[in-house]
């Protein structure tokens, strides 16, 4: 489900038209009354769109979704005291497809050196990390909060709500399930207006900013610190606008259908501390780790809180990808958060230096995200902290590469990004409402204009689809 492709929108339109045509005919059938048709139609639409992504993705999703429900039903048949024990068996089963497709090659071939060729070319089913985590959370919430097992169709819609199935947000039972239980296809001008604004903003971030910035990324240089920093900057901006763009389109699509999804990004590059950064970046994943890993480990009120924090971020890095680089990326963030917590009570930096420091750390850490070759990653990281890598010759090399029409266009895109970040900051500072100014009617019209003008001919895939 690539929102940046015309194919997705075409398929969605076809699916919705079929629903609109069938609805007056079928919804009066006794078995389909009381909204059953609408729920069935929504689930069918989601499955259809998922099937159009790939058959493997479709099958794996169904296995995880149905398996989780059946497993939970089985656990609930047992007396309360024994449920927790079964829960510990069910969760690994839920994560088994994820473990196989995403981590088997790394664990068995790279770490243990078994050299199993069949694992080398496994293609990770789109969205598996997201929906696997959502199902785990569902099972835990149902058991821990002693919630009843929902009706199967409502559960399927919770598990497979198409705007968020492949790249989140990772929704919780209490937020999404009640909406699915009440779901009806309703014409609401308010929802459509609001949803359209989010969709337009999301598509702008993805097509006009992320996809164009992607064209300037060149991670070839190992020793030139200026080039490495520039690539970190380009990548950091690209991945934010790529993922936030996707999430905002998902949010807008949900809103058009009358479903309120969680806002996954709240202008993270306006943060003045790493703690704040993680309250604004990929919010539903941070909350997932907080509730299902950090707090069970003891949270922040125990003496070993730093260990807990480190574990969470190493695991978070590993969630993003099976590779040492992702572990390093997570570790950098973990260390930064520990330092942040240790010193925030003693020293309070003014807002601007605190923002600069936060950005330096987060953009430095992006190196660990995009550079998957561990030896090269270490060399690049070393260059960033070597004064010699900032010498005049390196500067000349940097300038020679970017004193061109390509460099000029990159500057234009970076300036445009700066304007967008400024409005993000203004929205947060004045209204505590992310993207407030960018969602005003005139701004959205301007963003549409810019999207049509600036979007490259071909869109890049969404980075987070690989996770």
């Amino acid at each position: 489900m690539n929102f940046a492709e015309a194919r997705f929108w075409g398929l969605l339109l076809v699916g919705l038209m079929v629903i609109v045509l069938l609805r007056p005919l079928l919804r009066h059938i006794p078995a389909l009354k009381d909204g059953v048709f609408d729920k069935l139609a929504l689930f069918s639409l989601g499955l259809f769109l998922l099937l159009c992504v790939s058959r493997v993705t479709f099958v794996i999703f169904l296995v995880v979704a149905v398996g989780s429900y059946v497993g939970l039903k089985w656990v609930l048949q047992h007396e309360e005291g024994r449920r927790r024990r079964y829960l510990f068996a069910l969760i690994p089963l839920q994560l088994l497809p994820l473990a196989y497709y995403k981590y088997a090659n790394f664990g068995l071939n790279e770490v243990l050196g078994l050299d199993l060729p069949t694992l080398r070319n496994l293609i990770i089913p789109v969205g598996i990390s997201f929906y696997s985590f959502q199902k785990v959370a569902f099972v835990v919430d149902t058991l821990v909060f002693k919630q009843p097992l929902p009706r199967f169709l409502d559960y399927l819609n919770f598990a497979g709500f198409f705007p968020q199935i492949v790249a989140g947000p990772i929704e919780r039972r209490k937020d999404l399930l009640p909406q699915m239980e009440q779901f009806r296809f309703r014409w609401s001008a308010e929802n459509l207006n609001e949803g359209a604004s989010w969709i337009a903003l999301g598509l702008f971030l993805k097509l006009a900013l992320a996809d164009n910035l992607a064209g300037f990324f060149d991670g070839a240089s190992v020793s030139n610190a200026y080039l490495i920093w520039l690539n970190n900057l380009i990548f950091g901006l690209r991945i934010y606008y790529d993922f936030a763009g996707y999430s905002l389109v998902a949010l807008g699509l949900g809103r058009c259908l009358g479903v309120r999804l969680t806002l996954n990004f709240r202008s993270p590059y306006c943060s003045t501390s790493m703690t704040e950064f993680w309250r604004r970046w990929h919010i539903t994943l941070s909350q997932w780790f907080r509730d299902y890993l950090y707090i069970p480990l003891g949270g922040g009120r125990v003496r070993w809180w730093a260990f807990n924090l480190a574990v969470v971020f190493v695991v978070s890095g590993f969630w993003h990808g099976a590779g040492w680089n992702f572990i390093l990326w997570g570790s950098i963030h973990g260390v930064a958060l520990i330092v942040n917590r240790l010193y925030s009570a003693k020293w309070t930096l003014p807002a601007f230096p605190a923002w600069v420091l936060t950005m330096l750390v987060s953009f430095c850490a992006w190196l660990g995200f995009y550079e998957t070759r561990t030896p090269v990653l270490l060399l690049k990281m070393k260059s960033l902290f070597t004064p010699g890598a900032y010498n005049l010759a390196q500067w000349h090399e940097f300038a020679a590469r970017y004193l061109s029409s390509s460099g000029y266009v990159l500057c234009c895109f970076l300036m445009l990004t700066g304007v967008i970040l400024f409005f993000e900051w203004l929205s947060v500072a004045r209204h505590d409402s992310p993207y407030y100014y960018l969602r005003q009617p005139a701004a959205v019209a301007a963003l549409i204009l810019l999207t049509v003008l600036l979007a490259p001919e071909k869109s890049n895939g969404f980075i987070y689809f690989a996770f």
Partner: protein
Amino acid sequence: MASSTSHSNSRFPTRAAALLLTAVVVWGLSIVYTLYGNPEVRNWVMGGKIKIQWAEKMTREHGSKILVYGGSSCSFSIDGERMLDRFGLPTINFGRGADMGPTVLTESVLDYIRPGDTLIVAIEPGLLTQSFDVPALGVQFSYAMHHPEWVRHPHFGEPRVSWFQALAALRPGGFHTFMVAGRFASGRPLFRYQASDYHASGWEQTEVRVKVTGPADYGTHLSDNARALLRGLSAWCAERHVRIAYSLPWCYTPPDQVKSFQERNIAILLQVNEFIPVLRDAHLGVDTNLEDFADTQFHLVGPAAALRTDEFAGQIKSWELWTATELRQRETRFVSAVNLPQ
């Protein structure tokens, strides 16, 4: 979007509709700009019309003719008027922008080929070693020339452009928008090349001078698309009794890189030779004289283009071709750097 139900008569989603309308209008305007206002497309269209006029004149006055086509290396190299005046060879230079892609470069020539003509393929090797794609410029040029079939239904297999891909390509894009805005703001010409750069035969020259580096960097294996194109084109020409050959463009090459560059070119020529014959140009794509180039490693200045034209005319007249054996021998015994006389 939410589907409609018969029961609800809520108010119309004005804002959503206005946004949709904005997108449609802006897209429409960007198509109009691309086809009629984009200075790059306008330049190529103007050049295209000049070349077509010359082709029609040559057909009318001389019957059989020579058509040479490729990217801009071709456009800047072969002087059709010189070919006619000095050697009596009616020649049309159908060189265009390499950024249009091999499919459009080829398709845009086919309409002007008649039985008995000679077709010289002078596409840059870099275009033949990559998978084909129809870049935005190719789509824009095709539509601006009122020949969408060049990209929608090309003669020689893939890639075909769907109507939506075409629609997506008929927009300026970020690079173009910012470049034009910058040039406009600084009072510079909106595109590097001008209408006055074209001579009557379609041969192109420019006053622009940019520091040139070289040689061009490309692989040594023809892409599957290139093989399909050459195979198809060869058969198409055979059916129509059209003589066909390949001519390697000249590229600026520093003397210390002559050997490796020629080695690469020979590897490519050997593969091209499997489908169409290759004109025997002893330079093997190398020109070590920096002053022969205007603004890129492929754009020859007037005197160098005259030399290239003269040599090209000689090759055409005597139909000198490389044999595979000769090329293989060259692979092991490289020619030394060739310095062209001024």
